[in-house]
């Protein structure tokens, strides 16, 4: 408990270990208690009682991909904003103007995506 960086690793590591230990305990106790019986019909994917006709590795709507790409863009923007937000008081008004320019540029992309109908799910 001397070096803050090493302390943090120890503290988060202990919490991770406790979470993982709890989860593993649940699963292993359940493995001791639970019955096991194999049956080819039981291990089919659920499809309301009928035999599945199609595999789930099928194409799906491209909208999910567009949303994911937009998420990456905006989340990166947010990550740039966090350190700016913490030190705005020391940086003063010029930093405020700079960040407004930055947000305005990204809002152009946002409006473009809106006009292109990325947010329309019909």
């Amino acid at each position, binding site marked *: 408990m001397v070096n803050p960086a090493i302390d943090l690793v120890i503290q988060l590591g202990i919490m991770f270990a406790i979470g993982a230990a709890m989860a593993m305990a649940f699963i292993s106790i*359940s493995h001791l208690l639970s019955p096991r019986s194999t049956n080819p019909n039981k291990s089919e994917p659920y499809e309301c009682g009928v035999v599945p006709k199609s*595999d789930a590795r099928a194409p799906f709507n491209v909208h999910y991909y567009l949303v994911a790409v937009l998420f990456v863009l905006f989340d990166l923007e947010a990550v740039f904003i966090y350190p700016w937000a913490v030190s705005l008081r020391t940086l003063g008004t010029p930093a405020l103007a700079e960040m407004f320019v930055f947000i305005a540029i990204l809002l152009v992309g946002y409006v473009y995506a809106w006009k292109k109908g990325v947010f329309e799910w019909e």
Partner: protein
Amino acid sequence: MSDPIAQLIFLIVKAILLPVLIVLFVAFVIYFERKFAGFFQARVGPTYLGPWGSLQSFGDIFKLMSKEDVTPARADKPVFKLAPYIAFIPAFLVMAVLPFGPVGGEPNLFGYRFDYVIANFDAGLVLFLAMCALGVYGVVLAGWSSNSNYSLLGGLRAGAQMISYELAMGFSVVGVMLMAGSMSLVDIVDRQAGNFWDWYFIPQIVGAVIFFIASIAELNRTPFDLAEAEQELVAGHLTEYSGMRWGMFYFAEYVNLVVVSAIVSTLYLGGWRAPLEVLDFIPGPIWLFLKICVLIFLYMWIRWTIFRYRYNQLMSIGWKVLLPLSIANLAVTAVVVSLVG
């Protein structure tokens, strides 16, 4: 005994006590959810196990443990088995940065300084957002690896929903960062010192409401529980899970509910601080616990009162309403903070 060793002992005590207490509390949160659901719908809810059915959750845990853990033949087995852990563990890391009482200052326990936080991390808020993002992995991997059509659709829906609302969440907390000048949850609570009108939910009311709505979507609860819409997707990404692996997803959902309620009270409702300075003699953990209980009741109230949204409505609310509003809130807060100082 030197101070580093004392701190290490305190750390181990805290790191064992806090998760165990939260997990025990979660068992009762699940009971109250079912009991309140009963009352909201003019039923009685669980009644048999224990007084007023209060031990129902423990009975459920033993039932789930004694059920078979089926892995579908066509599933991607390692990922299928890993996904419940990914859903379960991140909430525990968030507990580490959560202050539940005063931090720093004079020695207060046997001549040593006992900090009421496990890790006094400068970027605790970023850790919380990162762990929220990891939660998406648990859901999407569960849906993908099951190799079932319902699971795949449920996982995709949940993934798109969670990342959409995470943006609104990420932008709405910038207001708090601007006002506190820090990303550390300990500092954020310290800046809200005083009475309840000093808490951030008054200047940051827009941010607080956005954060609260986004957290409902993040927790996959009604009105945003599209991922598990029973009528269309059976159980979404959980369709192929059974026994205790399903139980872990369910449990993780409620651990997340408690942790997110704690984060909302830390960011906007003064954390462990008393609503009035004269009430400071009551210890911080009790105040935090009361605030968590009130917020959990609010989440339950919303869940059993408001109908589920359609998917296009859900995405419109996230991208066309909450995101612009949170950016506007950020801009206004930034202008006010740099003018007033």
